[in-house]
């Protein structure tokens, strides 16, 4: 096994131990999607879907999946920034370990968080009345795409985590980007209800492609080219943010 893979796995294990010790750090991937699902279904559902909360739930659930994935990406940036400020990374940097291993390890460990999002959102949604038309294969594919997308998006968070000076600043910057990103998409409403300029933005928002891919897979809605766009965005996110994150990490004193 190449050293970078081996060291990344060791460091992923470290992140998992940390998560196990602080289960409250999982609130954003367990309770939060459940609460959002209830809030949006019952507060806005009636107004948005002409009174049918049940219909809105079907539309909303893949959206909540997308939004939770986007917002859950904040944590990794904040955690890495804490590692840097506490000097933990200085130790790793003084060891003969591949420079990228601490970052890749942290991203790998997040698979568990994103898997939780998918399971909790679908499971809780089912209890509320979400009825996917998908079979097991499509659900598996939906989960894989969602988790894969989340991992690529988290490189943006890692980059900000390496750039910003304090963990608090990381949180602030990421929320400023990810909040509009998650709302300015097809997450909560169809994009054709939006004014022209916003519609253009949201239709090209990677989250829109992800959410519509999930809708197609889970609900049997038309897929169009959303899956291809989603995969394209995944490649682009890694191609841009992985080198940026690595460069910022190398520069970090």
């Amino acid at each position, binding site marked *: 096994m190449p050293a970078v893979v*081996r060291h990344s796995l060791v460091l992923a294990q*470290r992140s998992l*131990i940390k998560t196990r010790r602080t289960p409250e750090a999982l609130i954003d991937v367990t309770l939060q999607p459940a609460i959002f699902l209830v809030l949006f279904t019952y507060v806005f559902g009636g107004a948005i879907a002409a009174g049918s909360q049940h219909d809105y739930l079907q539309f909303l659930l893949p959206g909540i999946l997308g939004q939770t994935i986007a917002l859950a990406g904040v944590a990794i940036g904040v955690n890495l920034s804490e590692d840097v400020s*506490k*000097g933990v990374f*200085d*130790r790793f940097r*003084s060891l003969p370990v591949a420079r990228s291993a601490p970052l890749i390890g942290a991203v790998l460990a997040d698979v568990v968080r994103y898997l939780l999002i998918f399971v909790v959102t679908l499971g809780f949604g089912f209890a509320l009345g979400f009825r996917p038309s998908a079979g097991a294969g499509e659900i598996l594919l939906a989960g894989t795409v969602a988790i894969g997308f989340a991992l690529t998006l988290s490189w943006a968070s890692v980059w900000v985590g390496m750039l910003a000076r304090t963990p608090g600043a990381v949180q602030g910057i990421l929320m400023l980007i990810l909040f509009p990103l998650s709302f300015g998409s097809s997450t909560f409403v169809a994009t054709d209800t939006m004014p022209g300029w916003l519609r253009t933005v949201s239709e090209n928002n990677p989250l829109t492609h992800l959410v519509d891919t999930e809708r197609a897979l889970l609900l049997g809605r038309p897929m169009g080219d959303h899956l291809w766009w989603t995969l394209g965005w995944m490649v682009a996110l890694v191609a841009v943010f992985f080198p940026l994150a690595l460069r910022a990490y190398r520069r970090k004193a």
Partner: protein
Amino acid sequence: MGLAHGGRVSAPREGLRMDTTTAPRPATTTPPATELMIDAHGLEKRFGPTQALAGVDLQASAGTILGVLGPNGAGKTTAVNILATLLRPDAGTARVGGYDLAKDPASVRRTIGLTGQYASVDESLTGRENLVLIGRLLDLSRRGARARAAELLEWFGLTEAADRPSRTYSGGMRRRLDLAASLVGRPSVVFLDEPTTGLDPAKRDDMWHVVRSIVEDGATVLLTTQYLEEADALADRITVIDRGRVIADDTPDDLKRVVGGQTVVVRPSDQARSFDVRRILHDVTGKPVESPGNGLLSAGCTGDEQFWQITGALASAGIRVTELALRLPSLDEVFFSLTGKEETVCLP
């Protein structure tokens, strides 16, 4: 701490060891000319408007302790971070363990252990998990990493606390764990950045003991400190830096000679005897006697001989004392003697 167990920090490393004679320290001026494990020339580093290092040379022979003495902001940590491959110097060259810092940082990293100024252990991991993690990153087998962790925990007296998250550790325990973490890979060069800052005197003595053992085991140590006393107690050679420049580089004995040796301090129990004490101090040392206040009397003193004479004279005159000490100059006084100007030393 469990140093009495006599555990050894590191096993021999081929070609990187020499027989050490650190205690008692030989009275010669320079350590025998051997392989330089740390050899840095003209290190420069600038952070924005601050010139942290303005051409620093540092040398340490194999199996010795180099003390880098200076106030906060002198550039000590920057120098350590450069030598530990965490920072790139703007100018200058360095070899650590014989490897060129710029050309072969990977080999340097395999050679060194770093204990930073702030204990950089992972707080949510237990002491054992912290050490096993480092071992695994150093490509020890799972079993090997566990064995090494257990050995170090035992040696640092942390066995009982080994399976508690390290956030529950006291400051001294964290320091020890941090130091243990830097020794997992049996490094032949160990960097200790202010290892005793903030420790109480007993913990500090423990740390000194550990540092000496590391060297007895054949490693070379670079230790930064703000205290001449610490550098004097541990180092074979002391490099004094101030504002990014080396202002002295000497053996402890020669440095003390330059900065005016020690000061004898006496506080008579009966203040009425102050005059007699004054006379004794002056007669023995031939130096002016000062009263720093609080009933204390002090005079420069050039060695043990004079100190014994003073204690003898006090005893035969029947003068009781509440305080009697031989002190090294403070960092302030060192800087005053070396640079002729008052140094503002800001302590944390």
